């Protein structure tokens, strides 16, 4: 019962701030609403018994990714063309299409007999690290994915630096602007 009350509170906050993202004009307000939505989702992860995912959600998602997004919004002054309409004619078709899609998926979900299993393991730090770094041959091999993910993050960082920097040897051209 208590879990349901907590879930309703956190879910209403998450949904409301997601709707705020949809309706806000300034990207900065949208980003802050999105941070609120992510933090309440982290609370739901903790409620479901996956505290490590919740903490990673707060640290990486709400802390790092959204901080980067907010930083870029502030640097580029993303509200400078707030005179343009928020939506265009495509939105008239997108919203009914997405509503139809979610209605179909919701119908399929109602048909599916799913229930919580009491023997589901709690995703604590110890269990997560044991599973993630299980290098024995009987393990599930997540450590390989972990290494690949390190390579992916490195290549993404290199790509971002190469994309966002000015051309090499164009220091004088940059000063002209």
């Amino acid at each position, binding site marked *: 019962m208590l*879990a349901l009350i907590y879930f309703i509170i956190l879910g209403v906050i998450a949904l409301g701030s997601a*709707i705020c*993202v949809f309706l806000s004009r300034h990207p900065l307000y949208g980003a802050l609403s999105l941070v609120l939505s992510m933090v309440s989702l982290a609370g739901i992860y903790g409620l479901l018994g*996956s505290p490590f995912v919740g903490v990673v959600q707060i640290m990486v998602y709400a802390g790092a990714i959204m901080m980067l997004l907010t930083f870029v919004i502030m640097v580029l002054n*993303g509200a400078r063309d707030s005179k343009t*309409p928020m939506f*265009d004619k495509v939105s008239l078709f997108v919203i009914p299409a997405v509503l139809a899609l979610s209605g179909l*998926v919701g119908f399929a*979900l109602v048909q599916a007999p799913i229930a*919580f299993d009491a023997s589901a393991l709690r995703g604590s730090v110890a269990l997560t690290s044991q599973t993630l770094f299980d290098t024995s041959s009987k393990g599930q091999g997540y450590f390989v994915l972990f290494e690949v993910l390190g390579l992916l993050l490195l290549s993404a960082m290199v790509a971002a630096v190469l994309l966002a920097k000015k051309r090499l040897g164009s220091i004088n051209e940059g000063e002209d602007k």
Partner: protein
Amino acid sequence: MELQAIYIQFLALALFSIGLVVAISRRNIFFVLMGVELALNAVNLSFVGFSKTLPDTLSVTGQIVPLFTIAIAAAEACVGLAMVILIFRNRESMDANTYSNMKG
């Protein structure tokens, strides 16, 4: 009245729908990126909610995969924002409709 597994899935579905609508129908490029992030969040929530419906050792996978998803979302945000900065230098606009220079 207890917390049912289906409620989690409905919340994830609603968040995914809102994220999809934000990503497709908003014109500001930052809202497009934020909609993608919201949809990724909803998928993570769905993973964790489904993993709790499985018996003991089977329920671990659904709690590992969101960690990878979050890391991939970090890489996606990094490259996406770098591209936004790059395009913004040429176009001086946040409107995604002005970015389409390939007619089609």
